[in-house]
């Protein structure tokens, strides 16, 4: 089957999008959560079950503990307390664990073992998924139901000292707080003293209900010198003395008030043998959890082997202990020893509340919940419980009651365990199977791309894709059968949930067929390449020109960028990579222009010839431009006529100066928006502009940029769309003035600020109009197939329509980015690409690089928080999902989209090279899909990295989105190149 290389590339990218979608779906499992958003105080707690009647005990049980102190020691590993180190350095804690009134456990943390997700797990009882980060875009505030929120709603007074992550997660929840920063890892003394210094006076006061202390010092020591350093011992002794201080003070307070209090000592995560954390080794996930209270019975516990529980169990236990409703998304179960000393009725009541909450969560998340063994056990336990309460209320004190109660208790505990387990397996793991299938699809597409690269680069527009024969071959059916068998095997054997298995059989079969078909195509392409190898070698020897500097830079730069994605800092600071590459590109281009200008006349005559010829055929171009577009002002025509004389002298200078001009533009843009992580806090020009004191300057700059945009765009448009463009850009300014960001010079600033709906819709009308005109021209060029100029004009009109839309969506301080982007496009195409006769592939890669650089110039980064959501609300009254999403995505990816549309226009305006556009499409698809494919493999191997959630996952989403946009762009490329095809 013969396929144009453009169509081939577009379909390949489309398939790759499917692969990436499957991968992402497996990488970010949907979290288990309750559908109802938390609204504290609205719902009533479930009453106690009773057979045949309704219970009189409908309120929540009263709190077990008067005061709760949570002492969270960062990176406290279980053996620091329960092992030999604990005996040596923490004598008081060891005494409490062995002989005091306490319960001790080893709490297992789920990866990623990093502080923030762990705090979330401790306080919500749920396993936080990455999807949560996207859901509460822009705000680190914890929106899920959690113990702290419930406690605040119940009017508890909470005090917090320690890691400021808590203050970000729970702003305004604490009546008193002091945050310490975890930024300076080398400090491990001051950071803890800042917490301890408040302790004496707070313990003396006693006007609080919950006190939370988060000590960071131990974690810092671990990062500096590992778990075996002598510093650890000192720190543990310090923690032990603090613990003793808190405990004695609590005991003396208890003697006054006669109500018990609870002291919780726990770690958020452990520490590996090298002192770091984030992954899932045993040392990193095992943390001690010690509950100390005078309400507990003193009993000698087995210190060597504390019971293993989940970290998420603490939330439910704390909620019960404080007399609060259990957080809705909690998957943990109550630590039973805590309530063991209570009367039987209360014990059952607590267990019922916990089981009911878990079963509700199960009902909302699992469709076939009725078949779940835990749910069946719960129903049974509830019935028995009802009977027990009935008997109890009939004052039937006997051994039978006790026996039945114990039976109910055991039933409840079993149900809790099963429910908690089946809920936490829903979220806890990466869905490796889906990830693998997605990766395989992506890698197969990439292989296919790489295999067909030599064909396309040898100036072959047509590509012979062996599609039909492999699909009907025996091999295809064999592979398909094997894959289906594997699929069935994996789906029936795996315990955790899996996305591909939950798909209907037909869809899963489709995916399998896709995988095997791709494999067959790759194999046959490989075989043919080996067969043709000799032929290709002969042809490759023939040109023998080697790589030019620009080509080498483009190749090495692309490879270097792809490799840099494996380091978290390079992902955070990716804008630096692009700025650096673009600057280097400019320098290399300037070297190229120098050589073609100076050296050319001595040793390389053909270069000189090129430049000469480039200049020469620029002339008719400009001449025809102004002639055929009927430029209204007559002065312009005169200027163009006089141009030939000027051409000889000024042209050289323009060619020589243009790379430097581009370099200067890039440097100016760079200082406009500081982005990334290290530079984000630095003052930049956009902050200066957006502050309210500089409104006048902002207005001036925005107006100037709009004028520049108009000047640069109008020259290629037909008169009608030129007028539309002018009105549209005026509308953009009116819109910004209406919402009160910029000022009209003739209007004082005491104006009513509206939402600017009318103005924005006014601009939308023009955008649609221009796009429509452009499409009409394109279709005309395709159908009538006579006028070559019409097509170029049509493409330029589409480009200008997109520019107008971008001008509307970008914030006013970013309008210079748009203006500079158009300026650089004009300079590059006029003075560099046309005179130097660059190859279509090189031009494509350069467009891609500039597109990427402009993505970051605009202030974007690889952090979700920098997405400008306000673009989604331009001209919309209310939030409408589809247009808002489209506008936000376009507003974010303005750079790549505009550069790609310029690429289409530029290449199709070069009349002489018919296949350029489809080759460009191929190159664009290739260069867009290589980073994604490599990144997927890297992310899979780095999935237990410390920064997987904060750095790599957002980047994965960005890459996925970028690939989707690349696919759309490639489709457009192919459509336009097909037009050409029918014409030729």
């Amino acid at each position, binding site marked *: 089957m013969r396929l144009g290389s453009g169509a081939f590339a577009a379909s390949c990218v489309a398939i790759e999008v499917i692969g990436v979608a499957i991968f992402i779906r497996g990488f970010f499992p949907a979290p288990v959560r309750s559908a109802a958003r938390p609204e504290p105080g609205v719902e009533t707690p479930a009453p106690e079950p009773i057979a045949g009647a309704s219970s009189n005990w409908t309120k929540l049980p009263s709190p077990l503990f008067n005061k709760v102190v949570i002492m969270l020691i960062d990176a406290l590993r279980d053996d620091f307390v329960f092992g030999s180190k604990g005996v040596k350095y923490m004598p008081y804690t060891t005494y409490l664990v062995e002989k005091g009134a306490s319960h001790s456990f080893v709490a297992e943390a789920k990866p990623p073992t990093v502080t923030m997700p762990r705090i979330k797990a401790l306080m919500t009882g749920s396993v936080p998924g990455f999807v949560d980060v996207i859901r509460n875009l822009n705000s680190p505030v914890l929106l899920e139901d959690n113990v702290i929120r419930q406690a605040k709603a119940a009017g508890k007074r909470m005090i917090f000292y320690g890691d400021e992550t808590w203050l970000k997660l729970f702003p305004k929840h604490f009546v008193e707080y002091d945050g310490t920063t975890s930024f300076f890892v080398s400090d491990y003394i001051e950071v803890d003293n800042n917490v301890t210094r408040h302790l004496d006076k707070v313990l003396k006061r006693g006007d609080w209900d919950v006190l939370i202390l988060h000590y960071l010092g131990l974690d810092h020591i671990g990062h500096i010198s590992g778990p075996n350093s002598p510093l650890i011992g000192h720190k543990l002794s310090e923690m032990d003395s603090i613990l003793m201080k808190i405990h004695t003070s609590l005991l003396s307070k208890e003697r006054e008030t006669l109500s018990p209090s609870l002291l919780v000592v726990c770690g958020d995560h452990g520490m590996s043998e090298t002192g770091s954390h984030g992954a899932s080794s045993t040392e990193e996930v095992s943390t001690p959890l010690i509950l100390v209270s005078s309400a507990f019975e003193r009993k000698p516990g087995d210190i060597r082997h504390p019971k293993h529980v989940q970290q998420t169990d603490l939330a439910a236990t704390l909620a019960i202990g404080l007399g609060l409703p259990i957080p809705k998304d909690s998957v943990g179960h109550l630590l039973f020893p805590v309530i063991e000393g209570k009367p039987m009725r209360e014990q059952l009541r607590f267990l019922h509340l916990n089981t009911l909450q878990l079963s509700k969560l199960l009902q909302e998340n699992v469709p076939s919940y009725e078949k779940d063994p835990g749910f069946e056990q719960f129903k049974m336990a509830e019935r028995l419980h009802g009977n027990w309460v009935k008997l109890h209320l009939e004052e039937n004190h006997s051994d039978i009651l006790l026996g039945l109660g114990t039976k109910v208790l055991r039933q409840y505990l079993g149900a809790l365990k099963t429910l908690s387990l089946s809920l936490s397996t829903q979220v806890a793991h990466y869905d490796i199977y889906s990830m693998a299938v997605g990766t395989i699809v992506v890698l197969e597409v990439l292989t296919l791309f790489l295999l067909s690269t030599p064909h396309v680069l040898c100036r072959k527009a047509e590509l012979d894709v062996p599609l039909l024969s492999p699909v009907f071959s025996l091999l295809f059916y064999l592979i398909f059968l094997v894959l289906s068998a594997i699929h069935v095997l994996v789906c029936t054997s795996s315990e955790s949930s899996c996305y591909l298995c939950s798909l209907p059989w037909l869809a899963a079969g489709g995916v399998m067929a896709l995988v095997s078909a791709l494999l067959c195509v790759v194999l046959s392409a490989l075989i043919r390449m080996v067969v043709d190898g000799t032929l290709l070698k002969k042809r490759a020897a023939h040109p023998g020109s080697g790589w030019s500097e620009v080509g080498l830079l483009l190749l090495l730069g692309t490879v270097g960028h792809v490799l840099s994605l494996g380091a978290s*800092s390079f992902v955070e600071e990716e804008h630096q990579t692009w700025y650096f590459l673009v600057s280097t590109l400019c320098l290399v281009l300037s070297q190229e222009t120098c050589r073609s200008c100076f050296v050319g006349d001595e040793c390389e005559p053909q270069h000189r010839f090129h430049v000469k010829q480039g200049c020469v055929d620029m002339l008719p171009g400009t001449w025809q431009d102004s002639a055929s577009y009927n430029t209204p002002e007559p002065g312009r025509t005169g200027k163009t006529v006089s141009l030939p004389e000027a051409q000889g002298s000024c042209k050289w200078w323009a060619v020589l100066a243009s790379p430097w001009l581009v*370099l200067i533009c890039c440097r100016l843009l760079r200082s406009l928006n500081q982005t990334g992580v290290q530079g984000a806090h630095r003052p930049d020009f956009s902050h200066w502009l957006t502050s309210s004191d500089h409104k006048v300057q902002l207005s001036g700059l925005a107006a100037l940029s709009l004028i520049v945009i108009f000047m640069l765009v109008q020259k290629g448009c037909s008169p009608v769309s030129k007028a539309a463009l002018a009105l549209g850009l005026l509308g953009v300014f009116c819109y910004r003035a209406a919402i009160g960001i910029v000022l009209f010079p003739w209007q004082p600033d005491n104006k009513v600020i509206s939402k600017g709906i009318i103005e924005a819709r006014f601009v939308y009308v023009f955008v649609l109009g221009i796009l429509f005109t452009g499409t009409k021209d394109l279709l005309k060029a395709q159908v009538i197939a006579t006028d070559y100029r019409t097509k170029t004009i049509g493409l330029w009109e589409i480009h200008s329509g997109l520019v107008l839309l971008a001008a509307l969506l970008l914030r006013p301080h970013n309008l210079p980015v748009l203006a500079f982007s158009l300026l650089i496009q004009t300079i590059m195409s006029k003075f560099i690409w046309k005179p130097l006769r660059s190859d279509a592939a090189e031009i494509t890669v350069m467009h891609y690089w500039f597109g990427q650089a402009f993505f970051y110039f605009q202030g974007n980064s690889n952090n979700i928080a920098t997405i400008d959501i306000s673009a989604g609300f331009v001209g919309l009254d209310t939030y409408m999902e589809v247009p808002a999403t489209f506008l936000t995505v376009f507003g974010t990816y303005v750079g790549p989209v505009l550069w790609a549309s310029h690429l289409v226009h530029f290449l199709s305006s070069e009349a002489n090279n018919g296949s350029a556009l489809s080759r460009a499409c191929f190159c664009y698809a290739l260069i867009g899909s290589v980073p994604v494919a490599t990144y997927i493999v890297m992310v899979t191997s780095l999935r237990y990295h410390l920064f997987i959630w904060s750095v790599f996952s957002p980047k994965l989403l960005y890459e996925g989105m970028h690939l989707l946009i690349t696919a759309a762009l490639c489709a457009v490329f192919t459509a336009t190149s097909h037009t050409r095809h029918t014409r030729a």
Partner: protein
Amino acid sequence: MKDTDIKRLLYSNLLCVFSVFLSVFIPSLFLDNFSILETHLTWLCTCSTSVTGVNLLLHLVVKPNVSSRRSSLSHKVSRVLKCCIYFLLSCFFLHIIFVLYGAPLIELVLETFLFAVILSTFTTVPCLCLLGPNLKAWLRVFSRNGVTSIWENSLQITTISSFIGAWLGAFPIPLDWERPWQVWPISCTLGATFGYVAGLVSSPLWIYWNRKQLTYKSN
């Protein structure tokens, strides 16, 4: 081209390498707490002076390009003045390029400028010594197939490797290792130095290796 030429080239290049090492060790004899990282600017100055000195010395002693015609004193003086001006111009030019690459414009000006000085020491000074203030010759050497002697070949290699070293030196800056040498412009100056040393060492070897293939147009 004889093997003795290559040997001479090797020795002179090793002398240049030695001058770089000298600039690291000599100042610590006179200055307290001198180290490359902490008193970086001092090191930059000493390194620049010692490399320039050794280059001038080599130029005067070895004289790879024996100028045939004798020239007057005034001509010599104007030549020297021209060289100085060229050197300064190249420093400013490189400084501008660094700023265009994203170096801070106002803060750390001295650091940026000294980086420009050291990079032009590694690149412009050898050019000036070997080719003189003659732009045409420079263009010839740095265009394809324009080299006419092993000295020029070595010059080409060292200059390009210094630039590449400085370029590669910028990569560690965004990494979050928080090492003292990641601060602008230390990693770049170190990169340039390593590139220069590597170029000096490798160019005689490379020429020796390819001595059969290399043919120079004799002037």
